[in-house]
């Protein structure tokens, strides 16, 4: 049976966090009463004219710099013509063959282009279903209409749904870091379409692609792409042909339905927007964009690796920027003894995250970065055992507070290698004769019950390594 390889490219729309809309002075809003942020321009009233938002162009240039695009010294807006009630002028002002940014790369994925355009208004379908089918009426809210969008189009460089999801998270972090967008999928400030095809492994020619529209969460994007890959593979395996069409993924049913086929494809009749002048990017605009650039995730990952973190930890902290921020705040906390970077990263990425709700950020928890740094430092200095420290972390997550006082109040400080611990070890050996025999016979793993006994007796305060050493010492092996 033929093995297939998916080929995926993404088209991402990002609402830019400007103060005003792309072509008029109306303020951007989310959740305000309908049609309260409108004017003749964004309502498409007769006689109204667009004026390009300089801040949106600035943000577009920053995105271009972030992905290493070639920034066009001159780009132009085009009209994309089609009729729909959410499009008040009967055309969308977008960019076509002369976009603001060309080419580029983010991590392993090449960028085809980045361009600016305006968002459509929002249609609210009134009636039982909430979907357009079987609704009684559709109401248009023009508050969103005219919001600046950056459209980022990738080359077809992604090879799996998971990779697409991970890359999209990196893009989101990058955009957030740039401060150009809220990049919130639930609120629609980050939207993603995927172009998907499959081909037999080892071939170079691209298969017929389909476009999967507007998936509104990371989970659905991965699921939707997976479902579409499976659908195409089934078609090819049964000797069929994939049709070029635009598809909709319904996350509730998991079903993929066709929105329109190639024959129904729109002819958008693109032509240069005569109401706007070309965007001429001058030295000053480039300097301003460059000056506004923060450290980006890829650079941050490199810097974190240089601190001694594993590549995996560094990428995760850098690509999920909030984790990286928390980690760096903890690392910067002046605690004595100081934690080691990798150990501290493990405390953040493994122990702390495991104790938080799904999706909860460490910054929103009761555990302050300094508290986690203190705990990690005390473990490193063997002032508290790992087991006891985990109990402390439970308390911190539940109630907050200072780890050192919790350790003191609860008597959780590490037992040193003195007589007290030796006595507990002796009692453990006496109580686990079977295990002692097996350890003596060379089965190192059999030490488990003995160590477990010691930990129970000491409420986890004993250091595992020290216990193992004492067992060996007392058994003479």
């Amino acid at each position, binding site marked *: 049976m033929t093995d297939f390889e998916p080929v995926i490219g993404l088209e991402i729309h990002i609402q830019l966090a400007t103060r005003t809309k792309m072509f008029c002075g109306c303020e951007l809003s989310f959740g305000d009463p309908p049609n309260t942020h409108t004017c*003749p321009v964004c*309502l*498409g*009233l*007769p*006689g*109204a*004219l*667009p*004026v*390009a938002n300089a801040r949106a162009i600035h943000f577009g240039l920053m995105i271009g710099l972030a992905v290493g695009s070639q920034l066009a010294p001159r780009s132009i807006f085009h*009209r994309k*013509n089609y*009729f729909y*009630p959410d499009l*008040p*002028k*009967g*055309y969308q002002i977008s960019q076509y063959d002369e976009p603001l940014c060309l080419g580029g790369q983010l991590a392993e994925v090449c960028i085809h282009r980045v361009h600016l355009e305006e968002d459509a208004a929002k249609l609210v379908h009134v009636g039982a279903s909430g979907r357009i089918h079987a609704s009684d*009426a559709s109401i*248009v809210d023009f508050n969103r209409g005219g919001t600046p969008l950056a459209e980022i189009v990738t080359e077809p460089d992604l090879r799996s749904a998971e990779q697409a999801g991970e890359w999209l998270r990196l893009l989101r972090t990058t955009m957030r870091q740039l401060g150009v967008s809220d990049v919130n999928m639930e609120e629609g400030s980050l939207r993603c379409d995927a172009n998907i095809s499959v081909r037999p492994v080892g071939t170079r020619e691209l298969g017929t692609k389909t476009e999967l529209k507007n998936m509104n969460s990371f989970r659905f994007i991965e699921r939707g792409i997976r479902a579409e890959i499976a659908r195409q593979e089934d078609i090819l395996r049964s000797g069929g042909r994939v049709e070029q069409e635009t598809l909709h993924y319904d996350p509730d049913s998991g079903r993929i339905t066709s929105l329109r086929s190639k024959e129904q494809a729109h*002819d958008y*009749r*693109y*032509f240069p927007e*005569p*109401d*706007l*002048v070309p965007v001429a990017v001058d030295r000053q605009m480039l300097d301003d964009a460059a000056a506004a650039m923060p450290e980006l995730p890829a650079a941050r990952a490199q810097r974190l690796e240089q601190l001694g973190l594993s590549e995996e930890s560094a990428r995760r902290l850098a690509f999920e920027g909030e984790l990286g921020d928390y980690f760096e705040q903890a690392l910067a906390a002046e605690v004595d003894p100081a934690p080691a970077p990798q150990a501290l990263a493990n405390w953040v990425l493994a122990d702390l995250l495991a104790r938080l709700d799904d999706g909860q950020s460490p910054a929103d928890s009761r555990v302050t970065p300094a508290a986690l740094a203190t705990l990690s430092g005390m473990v490193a200095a063997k002032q508290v055992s790992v087991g006891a420290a985990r109990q402390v972390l439970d308390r911190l997550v539940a109630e907050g507070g200072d780890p050192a006082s919790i350790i003191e109040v609860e008597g959780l400080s590490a037992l040193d290698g003195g007589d007290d611990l030796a006595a507990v070890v002796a009692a453990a050996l006496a109580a686990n004769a079977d295990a002692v025999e097996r350890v003596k016979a060379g089965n190192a793993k059999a030490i488990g019950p003995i160590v477990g006994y010691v930990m129970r007796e000491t409420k986890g305060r004993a250091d595992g390594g020290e216990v193992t050493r004492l067992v060996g010492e007392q058994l003479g092996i």
Partner: protein
Amino acid sequence: MSADLLELSAAAAARELAAGEIAAHELLGVYRARAVAEELNCFTWVGDGEAPAPPPGSPLGGVPLAVKDLFCTEGVPSQSGSRILEGYRPPYTATVVERLRAAGAPLLAKTNQDEFAMGSSNENSAFGPVLNPWDRTRVPGGSSGGSAAAVAAGLAPWALGTDTGGSIRQPAALCGIVGMKPTYGAVSRYGMIAFASSLDQAGPLTRDVTDAALMLRHMIGRDKRDATSLSFPHEIALPSAESLAGVRLGVPAELSGEGIEDGVLDSFMAALRRAEELGAEIEQVSLPHAPHALSAYYVIAPAEASSNLARFDGVRYGLRIDDPAHPNDLLGMYTRTRHDGFGAEVKRRIMLGTYALSSGYYDAYYGRAQRVRTKIVEDFRSVFERVDFVVTPTSPSVAFPLGSRTGDPLAMYLSDFCTVPMSLAGIPAISIPCGLSEGLPVGLQLAGPAFSENKLLDAAHAIERKLAFDPTPARMAGGAGGPDARDGGSAGAGA
């Protein structure tokens, strides 16, 4: 008394208003009474109620202004001559109307026009044709036909129009008045209901060149709401030249021979001889691509229009016609609304433009038309290295009988043969009356390089003085309702 008021040019009225010789409300009252009684169908709306007093010390001091229907005027019908916008009252006012109001020119009336400015005879208006005050069986030209006829008939001191391919200059010529299309970008388009964005430009229709300069002075300037508007490099001066000494006039062979009526050509040539007497040097020049201008124009303008007019979809304003059997059918609503709301010529141009922009045809039509446009720009550039201005007849014919070209779109389109090249080049051009042919006015067009308005107005002023064309008989007849407009005398009975 009122007849005297009606005799005043806008500039003269502004002087008398400033001197306190006449009162603004009195002048407005006289013109309102004329406008309400008019029989040429010039107006789609006439103001009543109390007009706001002109701002103190404003340079125009209260000279009333007639404004083409397609300019948005807050709370006042702005319909662009179309059924699809019947009764539409915008929530804002066009920049240029606002500027003129601030300078002291209150809104007198809105003027009839060809629907969405598409036409050369004013017969494409949803509100009926406008009659030419020189001969009521003839068209006033278009698309600013209501504005031109109103000024010619003395129903307004002056009027605002728009010119896309000749829509100010051609009706000005056919009505025996002055009409000017400024440099593209000189006047804000914000609030002008668009026909073809890269060509549309507002301009004055006036009784004489001085009035044109005066109105233009208060129209120009960068508007931050129109990205294509420009800072005009200098103030518009009132023209004073009486000589053309040292002025070189170029007569393009392509626009002054074939296709021009004999009577028009005779009148034009006679005017050139008078210009020579004023000291002008006249030479023949060539605009080799000008004969292709009309073809390029009828691709570019409809292409832009097909997109500009997409917003009239029945969703937010204007006409909406649901399918009674299927009230939820969106496509049906679009189709019925646009089918019933647009007139035949508008639909013809939407179809032309849609076709020209279609995938697979774009390069052959729109792309090629834009290349022709570039060639025409270059033609003018090289001509202006040799001469100061290009002179042509404004219109190939005098005013034609109502209905004579409505069945033949190509014949109608040829009305703009001499004016379209300047529109494509974005350069300023003015039409002044230069004589009569068959008792009907003939227009002479002068065009200059971008931003040469002051020199252009000066040259036009000198020729105007020399020719001493008298438009008065026609002007004073319009509201009186006499059987022959030219015999109406100066009674000003409408007031």
